[in-house]
């Protein structure tokens, strides 16, 4: 008898035993106790019963270019599982051998340097929980195709624990020359995406990250090395980082000269609009969900601000007539996602539910109408308006 035959026979016997033990009353307790579980495995996966996936909401014209959005409504807490972190690529995901990958630092520095991964990992590291949000997140809310669920509405948003070397550490190693004003960061993807970052931010809190949620950064997130620029539009957090060029002026790459600018009604456009302003979204009860009759529910959602710490989130169930303070789950970390919740008894009547985030600068997340009045409808990036969900009296939830 071969090994697999004997195993099969053994499993068959076990199943028969399980069936007889469970007998006629096959309740879940009996089944779980009577069947041997799956074997050990070297790298875990989630339960096959779990279905949450990233989704691409736009037409994908080239397989490697586009975006997928994080299923915010299916997540707990504040950390995005690496496998569900949103994607935005401009020329596909490169396959990079970490043994061959190098980071070049040059330009207005005293000592140009090349680091390999091994050397980078010897340097002083930090681990910080930071959100990354694409500047185009929620653009369709502005342009009039509002998302039907949290994923469609604000899913170009994720939050991870990033581990790596502070960019300031590397720049100190190289030694900045007096004329250093900007750092051009460049990726090793096919589009060699480049963005210029002002030196003050580069020396503040930017991380050159090799770790994401306890393991290596995922390929879609920049393996083996990426920039994490906390609180700023995701495009500047260059993935597959290969080069840092210290310069005296911004390079005006396509993305900073044109793509990631905000065209205003007067024909002028904001440039270098880096910060992602305070924003929040109720993820439960939310569009696409169905409540099971009146009674107790906890309203819950996510809040964040790229400018300062979140100090409060307010929730309304009557379309903004009254606002109530939600409880913030500790720890509340700067430029990280914050989970809020508010106990609520639904009386079974129609309700319009939304939230607004307030940060330490006193900024209050605005209504869509306020943003349109100020910026028109062409500045599709950096949209942070309040999202409303309509709860019908049959328990169904839709975009309001």
């Amino acid at each position: 008898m071969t090994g697999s035959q004997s195993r099969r026979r053994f499993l068959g016997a076990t199943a028969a035993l399980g069936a007889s033990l469970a007998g006629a009353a096959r309740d879940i307790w009996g089944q779980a106790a009577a069947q041997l579980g799956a074997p050990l495995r070297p790298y875990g996966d989630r339960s096959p019963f779990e279905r949450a996936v990233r989704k691409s909401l736009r037409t994908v014209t080239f397989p490697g270019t586009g975006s997928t959005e994080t299923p915010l409504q299916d997540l707990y807490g504040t950390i995005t599982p690496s496998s569900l972190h949103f994607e935005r690529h401009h020329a596909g995901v490169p396959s990079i051998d970490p043994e061959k990958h190098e980071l070049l630092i040059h330009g207005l520095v005293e000592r140009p340097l090349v680091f390999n991964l091994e050397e980078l990992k010897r340097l002083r590291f930090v681990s910080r929980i930071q959100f990354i949000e694409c500047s185009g997140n929620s653009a369709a809310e502005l342009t009039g195709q509002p998302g039907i669920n949290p994923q469609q509405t604000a899913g170009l948003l994720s939050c991870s624990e990033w581990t790596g070397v502070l960019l300031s550490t590397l720049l100190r190693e190289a030694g900045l020359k007096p004329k250093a004003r900007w750092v051009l960061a460049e990726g090793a993807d096919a589009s060699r995406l480049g963005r210029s970052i002002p030196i003050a931010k580069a020396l503040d809190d930017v991380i050159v990250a090799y770790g994401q949620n306890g393991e290596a950064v995922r390929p879609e997130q920049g393996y083996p090395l990426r920039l994490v620029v906390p609180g700023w539009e995701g495009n500047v957090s260059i993935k597959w980082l290969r080069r840092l060029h210290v310069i005296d002026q911004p390079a005006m790459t396509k993305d900073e000269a044109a793509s990631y600018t905000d065209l205003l009604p007067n024909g002028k456009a904001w440039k270098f609009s880096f910060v992602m302003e305070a924003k929040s979204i109720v993820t439960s009860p939310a569009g696409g969900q169905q409540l099971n009759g009146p009674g107790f529910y906890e309203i819950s959602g996510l809040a964040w601000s790229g400018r300062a710490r979140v100090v409060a989130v307010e929730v309304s169930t009557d379309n903004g007539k009254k606002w109530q303070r939600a409880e913030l789950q500790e720890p509340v970390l700067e430029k990280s996602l914050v989970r809020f919740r508010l106990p609520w008894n639904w009386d079974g009547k129609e309700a319009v539910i939304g939230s607004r985030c307030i940060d330490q600068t006193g900024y209050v997340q605005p209504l869509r109408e306020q943003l349109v009045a100020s910026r028109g409808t062409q500045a599709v990036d950096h949209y942070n308006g309040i999202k409303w969900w309509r709860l019908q009296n049959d328990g169904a939830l839709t975009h309001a």
Partner: protein
Amino acid sequence: MRRKALPLVVVYAFVTVSLGAQTGQLNLGRSPSPDEIRERDITVLPDGTGLPVGKGGASDGEIIYRDKCANCHGVNGEGNRPVGQALVGGIGTLGSPNPVKTIGSYWPYATSVWDYIHRAMPYNEPGSLSADETYAVTAYLLFRNGIIQRNAALTQENLAKVHMPNRDGFVPDSRPDVGKTAKTSQSPK
């Protein structure tokens, strides 16, 4: 390449060590040779710094464009949504209800056009165009936008001097433009 540069690397390593000793550096990472930096440095600045020596005009650019760009961006640069954006036209529309953003109407620097083509285009063969070909395609696109003459040749000397129509169309980010005035149930701490 790297082996040839070894003596230089040794010299640089020595310099790094001595500087490091003075400033308390960690002395990790290696010093690249000037050749190695040159090979990897593709930065082009708006003042023209970093542009390689080369020359190209709109007529040559048109041939390359038809062959390698028109499929996605349209025979006349009119775009082919959703595959490729429009590259030509739209000048004067930015303040209208239906603004058309193209290289001609929106981009503030000609160097950005050259740099993007050189970095990332054609989409399926990025980095495949020579410096001369990149000048030529840039010239063709600027010609089609009415910014330069058909017979003008672009070079590393004159590209940064091309005046783009929307050169002064960008202003500093003035946010927070809204969000400070809304009344809250309690003022934040």
